[in-house]
C-alpha cells in the first residue's frame, strides 16, 4: 500500500444516513427533470403507470422502468437530452461496434462533476499534485482520454496527453519526461510492460509510481503482472460513457473494491433474468441512476456489467459502496438447469489449474429434457502430459472445480489446439445448441 489522501471528504466520507437523504432528494429531482424534459422517458413512465410524485423513498426507484442501450440508440442522436444544445459544452459517443453508437452530452456543470469524480479516484489511488501523468488512452469520442485528463489536471498533476499508439515512443516519453503515473487500459499496460522488458530497460530507468487502469475488465493476476513489470502501484476504475465516462467508481490504495461515487450515481443490482434485486454477496447486473446529470439524466440504466458489492466498511474511511471487479456481462449469461452461468466463472477455474488461460468454449446442448454443459479446453503444451493418467486427472480436476464454482455438473472435453472457432482473433466463448423456444 502507498500513502494517499481523500479528495472530497465531505461527500466521499459522508455519513450513510445523510448520504441516503441526499440521494433521495436528488433522485426525486432527476425523475422530475426526466419527466418534464425528455418525452421518451415520460412515455416509458406512463406505460408502467408511474409519475414523479410516486417516488417517496429510495426503494420506490423500483417502480421506475429500466433504461437500456437500445433506448439510447432509439434516441440517436439528441432525443435523450434534457437540455437544449446551447447548454451542452461537450459531446462524446460510445463506439458503435455492436450497433449504432450512443451519443452523450455534458453541460458545464456535468463537466464539473465528471472532473471531480475522476479526481476522487485518482487521489484515492495515490495521485498527488507532484505527479507527472502519462495518459495513453485515446483522445476523441471515447471518454477515457479526456475524462482522465481533466481529472488529473484538477488534482494539479502535470498531464502529458500522449494518447494511444506508437508504443516505443510511449516508453521513450515515459523515460525522458519522467512520467510517474500511467493511465491506460490494463491490457495495454501488460503490453507496455513486456515491451519495457524487451527493450532491456532497468527498473530505475522509468519513474512510474502509480497506475490507473480501466475501460476493460481485468483480474488480480493481471494486476500483479502489471505491478511487477512496470514497478508501479495499480488501481482499477470503472465508468461508462452513458453514465458519465470514467469516474463512476474507483479503487483506493486498499485495492479492495471500487468506491462508487454514490452522491452522483445510485447503484442497484439485479438478477438479469428476473430483474429482481439480488443480495450484495451475489453476482448481479449493475444498474445505475445518474443523480445529478443535467444533459442526459439516465434512470435505472442497465450496464450489463456483472459484479458483486463488497461487504463492510473500507479502512480508508470512504462510505460509498464498493463494487467488485466486473466479472462478466449479463449478455453472456447462460441459464443452464436453472443456474446462472457466466463464461468468466469457467475462465477463473481454468486459470487456476495451471496459472495460464487456455482457449476454451462452453457448449450447451439439450438431451431430452436436460441441459448439458460441456467445456472444451484446448490442450496447449502447458496442459499436456505424456501420460494418460495425468490427462485424465486434469480432466477430472477441472470437472470437480467447475462443479464447485458453477453449482452444476459440466463435462470437460480436451481438444487439440486451434480447433475452437475464432472470429477476429477472439475465441467464440459460447455455443448454445439448445433449440430456441
Amino acid at each position, binding site marked *: 500500500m502507498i500513502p494517499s489522501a481523500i479528495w472530497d471528504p465531505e461527500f466521499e466520507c459522508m455519513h450513510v444516513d445523510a448520504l441516503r437523504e441526499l440521494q433521495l432528494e436528488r433522485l426525486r429531482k432527476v425523475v422530475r427533470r426526466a419527466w418534464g424534459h425528455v418525452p421518451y422517458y415520460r412515455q416509458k413512465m406512463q406505460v408502467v403507470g408511474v409519475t414523479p410524485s410516486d417516488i417517496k423513498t429510495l426503494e420506490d426507484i423500483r417502480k421506475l422502468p429500466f433504461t437500456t442501450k437500445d433506448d439510447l440508440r432509439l434516441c440517436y442522436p439528441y432525443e435523450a437530452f434534457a437540455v437544449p444544445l446551447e447548454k451542452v459544452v461537450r459531446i462524446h459517443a460510445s463506439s458503435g461496434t455492436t450497433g449504432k453508437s450512443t451519443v452523450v452530452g455534458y453541460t458545464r456543470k456535468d463537466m464539473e462533476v465528471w472532473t471531480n469524480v475522476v479526481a476522487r479516484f485518482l487521489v484515492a489511488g495515490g495521485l498527488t499534485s507532484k505527479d507527472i501523468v502519462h495518459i495513453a488512452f485515446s483522445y476523441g469520442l471515447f471518454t477515457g482520454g479526456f475524462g482522465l485528463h481533466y481529472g488529473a489536471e484538477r488534482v494539479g498533476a502535470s498531464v502529458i496527453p500522449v494518447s494511444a499508439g506508437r508504443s516505443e515512443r510511449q516508453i521513450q516519453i515515459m523515460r525522458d519526461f519522467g512520467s510517474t503515473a500511467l493511465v491506460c487500459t490494463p491490457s495495454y499496460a501488460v503490453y507496455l510492460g513486456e515491451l519495457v522488458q524487451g527493450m532491456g530497460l532497468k527498473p530505475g530507468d522509468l519513474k512510474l509510481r502509480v497506475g490507473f487502469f480501466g475501460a476493460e475488465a481485468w483480474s488480480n493476476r493481471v494486476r500483479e503482472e502489471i505491478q511487477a513489470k512496470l514497478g508501479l502501484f495499480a488501481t482499477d476504475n470503472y465508468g461508462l460513457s452513458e453514465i458519465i465516462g470514467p469516474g463512476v467508481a474507483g479503487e483506493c490504495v486498499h485495492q479492495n473494491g471500487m468506491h462508487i461515487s454514490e452522491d452522483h450515481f445510485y447503484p442497484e443490482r439485479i438478477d438479469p433474468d428476473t430483474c429482481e434485486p439480488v443480495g450484495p454477496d451475489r453476482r448481479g447486473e449493475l444498474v445505475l441512476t445518474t443523480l445529478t446529470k443535467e444533459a442526459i439524466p439516465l434512470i435505472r440504466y442497465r450496464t450489463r456489467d456483472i459484479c458483486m458489492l463488497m461487504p463492510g466498511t473500507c479502512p480508508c474511511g470512504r462510505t460509498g459502496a464498493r463494487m467488485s471487479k466486473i466479472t462478466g456481462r449479463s449478455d453472456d449469461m447462460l441459464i443452464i438447469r436453472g443456474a446462472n452461468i457466466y463464461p468468466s466463472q469457467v475462465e477463473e477455474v481454468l486459470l487456476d489449474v495451471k496459472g495460464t488461460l487456455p482457449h476454451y468454449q462452453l457448449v450447451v446442448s439439450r438431451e431430452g429434457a436436460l441441459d448439458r454443459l460441456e467445456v472444451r479446453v484446448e*490442450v*496447449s*503444451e502447458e*496442459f*499436456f*502430459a*505424456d*501420460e*494418460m493418467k495425468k*490427462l*485424465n486427472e486434469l480432466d477430472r480436476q477441472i470437472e470437480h472445480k467447475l462443479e464447485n464454482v458453477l453449482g452444476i455438473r459440466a463435462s470437460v*472435453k*480436451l*481438444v*487439440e*489446439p*486451434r*480447433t475452437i472457432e475464432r472470429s477476429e482473433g477472439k475465441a467464440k466463448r459460447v455455443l448454445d445448441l439448445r433449440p430456441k423456444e
Partner: protein
Amino acid sequence: MKVRQLSIFMENRAGRLAEIMQSLGDAGINIRALSLADTSDFGILRLIVSQVDKALEVLRKAGHTVSLTDVVAVEVPDHPGGLASVLTPLREAGVNVEYMYAFVEKATDKAVVIFRFEETEAALKVLAGARISVLPAETVYKL
C-alpha cells in the same frame, strides 16, 4: 542411453493420424516406432523418429501440442520368457513402468521394447546391473 520420444496430443477424429503422418512424410522424416494410447475422446500418439528436432519443429508449426519424453529402448532376446527376463529385475528393484510398446528390428529380427519408466535413471542402473542390453539413442533413430 535415453531416447527422445515425441508425444502428440490427438483428438479422436477421422483422418487425424493420417494428417500427422503426411506432414512428417513431406518433411522427409522416418518413423522408427509408434504407439497410440487412447480414450473415447482423445489419445496420445508416441513416436520415435529419425530426426527428432526437425519433427518437433514440423509438428509445432502445424499447430500440434507436442512434448519430448525420455524413454529407454531395450533389446529383448527373441525366445519364450525373453521379456520376462527384462521385467523381473525391474520388478525386484521396485522400478515402475509407466507404459511400453514393442517393435521388431529389421536387421537382426530382434524385438526392441520402448519403456517409459517413472524414474529413468534408476531404471537404467537396474538394467545395467542385470546386463540387459540398452540400445544407444543414435542406434534407435537409425533403425
